[in-house]
């Protein structure tokens, strides 16, 4: 019998440690549990405050009792998630975008580019400068361009996200036979289409 009490005490300690860990993870979002639950569910939104509190209390009590009783299972799941997440993070290396020679379109002078990319708006909601609101980024990019560099326009397809391919357009430095730093002017992406 003593072993059974010891098991339950260990379960209570585990539940306490589990809740502290969850609190630390979610400390910046006190309402996250409610957000998860509510989402945009109009049925839930219609419930009274007492109704919501009652459901939350019952859910928390059930969760607590279950965890105390079957805490080795919860511990095993936590350990498994920890290792599988680490493995997943190692496998999911984000593809690094790079411009290849086959992506180059044509050479431009800096003046030509700045004339092409001049942004004008009838409502004057943008500075009338090359690349408009991104002008500061363009100026910063030009600091990397050396006098002997050639600037080429490019258009490159790449897998920007897990969901769709993207087409990046912009300008890139060509240094002799090498391709140097690039400046992105736009990203075309088609909306995700569910598989049928």
């Amino acid at each position, binding site marked *: 019998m003593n072993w059974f009490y010891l098991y339950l005490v260990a379960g209570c300690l585990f539940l306490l440690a589990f809740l502290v860990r969850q609190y630390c993870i979610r400390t*910046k*979002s006190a*309402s*996250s549990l409610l*957000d*998860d639950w509510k*989402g*945009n*569910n*109009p*049925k839930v939104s219609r419930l009274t405050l007492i109704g919501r509190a009652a459901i939350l209390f019952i859910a928390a009590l059930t969760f607590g009792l279950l965890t105390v009783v079957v805490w080795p299972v919860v511990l095993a799941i936590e350990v498994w998630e920890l290792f599988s997440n680490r493995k997943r993070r190692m496998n999911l290396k984000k593809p690094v975008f790079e411009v290849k020679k086959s992506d180059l379109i044509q050479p431009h002078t800096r003046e030509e580019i700045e004339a092409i990319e001049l*942004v004008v*708006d*009838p*409502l004057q*909601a*943008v*500075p009338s400068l090359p690349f*408009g*609101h*991104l002008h*500061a*980024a363009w100026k*910063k*990019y030009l600091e990397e361009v050396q006098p002997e560099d050639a600037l080429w326009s490019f258009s490159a397809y790449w897998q920007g996200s897990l*969901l769709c391919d993207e087409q990046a*357009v912009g300008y890139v430095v060509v240094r002799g036979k090498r391709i140097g730093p690039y*400046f*992105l*002017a*736009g*990203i*075309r*992406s*088609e*909306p*995700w*289409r*569910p598989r*049928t």
Partner: protein
Amino acid sequence: MTVQIPETLICENTRRTLLSEPLADYFTLGGRNPGLRWQSTACWRGYVGTWELCNKRLYLIALADYLSLSEGRSSNLSLATLFPEYPHRVFAHWYWGTLRIPMGRRLGNIGLAFHDNCERTLLLRFERGVLLAASERHNDGKKMNADTPMQIAEAVALLDASDGSVEVEI
């Protein structure tokens, strides 16, 4: 995964839910990011933007942080935070993508950030912040996943028409 609070698109005084995030491209292209961080699992991007389609051009006209909106207090974040010289309206010339606007009735309560959880989706394709083409995608029935091209004027009229679509409330 928690349903993400969408952006809002205003067209001809009608407010619509917008399932795209044109401001994300601004940051990707090198625009200044003042360190926007997630405040809730319902808003990983950390902000909620209001956009306007005016004369085929896309403008960002308001920006707020999710927590302030959900708690009904004034937002710490505004257009002036990102664009100090343009506090009322910003032309989204950096946007080359396709806006997704849900139309018709909802097909269910649960939907993911990238899932069109409605009868139809209006697709508006932009280049340099200017509307170039429009089409409509069917999300259920026999025409599922079929894109039907339409005139831009037709799409704008559709945005303004009341078809029972509901803007998601924050």
